[in-house]
């Protein structure tokens, strides 16, 4: 049960600096079109580069593009961690 909750809560916002994850397929509807167009696609690799003070915004590298997105957006995009 505990493990299941942990899996469900994995989003871009829960990454640690330097961590890598993969955007999950079921997140598609939650990804704003603009982010999608910038390469933030299901299956794409996301790496967290830096977090601004107060945990917001997040500086990520996704699909080779370096972006800054807000925490609320990051928290709505689910990911699979590389070790799963």
């Amino acid at each position, binding site marked *: 049960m505990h493990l299941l909750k942990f899996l469900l809560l994995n989003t871009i916002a829960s990454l640690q600096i330097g961590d890598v994850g993969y955007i999950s397929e079921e997140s598609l509807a939650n990804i704003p079109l*603009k982010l999608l*167009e910038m*390469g933030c696609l*299901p299956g794409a690799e996301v790496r967290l580069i830096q977090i*601004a003070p107060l945990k917001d*915004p997040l*500086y990520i590298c996704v*699909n*080779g593009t370096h972006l*800054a997105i807000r925490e609320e957006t990051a928290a709505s995009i689910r990911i699979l961690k590389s070790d799963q």
Partner: protein
Amino acid sequence: MAKTNINVALIGNPNTGKTSLFNQLTGLNQKVGNYPGVTVDKKEGECKLSTTHTAIITDLPGTYSINPTSLDESIVLKTLLNRSITSTPDVILVIADVENLKRNLLLFSQIKDLEIPTVLAINMVDQMHNKGITIDITALKEELNTEIVLISARKNKGIQQIKEAIIRCHIAAKASPLCAIDHKIDPAYFNKLKEISPNYSMYELWLMITQNNYPESISKEEKDKLLAFKKDISKIKKYQHKETIYRYQEINRILQNTYLVDKTKGKDLRGKLDRIFTHKIFGYVFFTLLLLVIFQSIFHLAAIPMDAIDGFFAKLSVATKSNLQPGMLTNLITDGIIPGIGGVVIFIPQIAILFLFIAVLEETGYMSRVVFLMDKIMRRFGMNGKSIIPLISGTACAIPAIMATRTISSWKERLITILVTPFTTCSARLPVYAILIALIIPDTTVFGFLNLQGLVLLLLYALGFATAITAAYLLQKMLKLNTKSFFVVEMPNYKIPSVKNVVLEVIEKTKAFVLEAGKIILALSIVLWFLASNGPSSYKNARKTVIENPTNNNLSQEELEKIIASAELENSYIGILGKAIEPSIRPLGYDWKIGIALITSFAAREVFVGTLATIYSVEADDEDTSTIKEKMASEINTETGKLRFNLPVGMSLLIFYAFAMQCMATLAIVKRETKTWKWPLIQLFSMGILAYLASFITYQIFS
């Protein structure tokens, strides 16, 4: 043979070197205009392609996709879709960055589907070896079905090939879509869409419904049919997502065999720099130090050429006077026009330095890091990380700064940014601050290395910024607007700024500023001079009244002339006007001469200095060679017998200029951007009241 003119639209993602390419193609043959009906600057330039062909190149704002999320990006869509809004592009030149080719090709694929002849320029190919990138150019040309040119815009490589490709592309005039999105998503749905009109491509019709943008040329019947599609919004949203995914699948398929990256290559300079510039502590420390350096150099570096310019115009005035026949026209030139022009030319060093720093910060990619660092903080005040760019470029001029808010997609955040930007210290306030600080603040060093005058200047900038964010905070609480805020910023790779781009930017901006301000100042100084050297009968009798006054009998001729001159000025039209408003500004410590300068500086703040220069020149005798600063420094308050520009008056004026909304051009631009007079009028009155009260308090504290 007649020359053929080709209209070329230059399109690309931000940070792909679009400006460099535009500068290489057009050089100094650029002009900035406006799109009819839209308030966005349009940059156009002419480029000689060959002996038989010329191109008019339009530089469109940078965008990641044809689907706009901000006002800036919507220009690209409008130019391509509403072909009546500008001359239709014959050829589209898409620029892509070799390192981010995959993402850049998304925009390319959308444009290709519009079925307009397209040339693809892949930029920064000089970096390919370093980054371990190899491209199979023949296969890529085949797959994308387009002309491709490898260029390095900064090193001026491949430019000739682009010109040739544009001509070939124009002559061949063949255009075909790249991604047949209809087959992949929902053929029945898109077939129905396609049947609406034979005049437009399927993708154009699709954009019309997704972007709610219908060209004027479309018939009412066709439009109604398109609107019927809008009933199922969720389906449109879903298909837009599917479309983007399909485009990336196609791009990935094409690039798989044609574009290879050896990931072991490539140095991680970016990572190292980011660790400093976006660091939770060092990032902010560096940003603060940078601002300190900028403001110290504005005051210090600019001082030398400014003193030279000031002295030159004072001498020019005297030389002109001694070489021309005395008379009305000579007086107009020496007392009106020359001090007026001198008052504009003197700002050039400071403005150029400021524009230089801003251009360099944008070119290097550092500005995005500031946006990243500031977003959360700015959001507390109802703004957006992107608001930092208007607030910083507002230190140059509020007009381009307010236009720069177009990148902010939320209307509330954008409106607040527009309303508070005029509080940041623009370059027009600089000459006013500079001259007042030089008069009232001693030129000494504090803390061992900081110049006190520079420090006071920095504090004034800080005051402007602090007021801006306080006002933003209040506005956020007061404005009842609920708009969704969305934020995504690309963090581009660091680049060494291109000298050509920076120089062109500084020249263009400085020229625009000097010419615009120059026109107003020149006209006003002529009007002022006329009003100051003419008047009703009391003006004409001033000389007689002074001579006949028995108390003046024992004075020398020289002293008598001085009294006559000020009596004449007091009775001139301008004197009468100034005297009329004097009671209302006396509580702030100002006399009627300063009052005149306050009124005229509504046209543009820097007119303050020029106005005082004109007033004091009219008053001074003909042999006076002193500069504006010297004249102000020796001006005596006739009531107290002490210096006019003492600490209380100087501080009160500094505070007044820090807060007052004193620029007609800014009001006009706010009206244009908000599309109503409501906001500029609110700005004018609330900032005016604030300025009056704050200067009143300041004057009382210091005196």
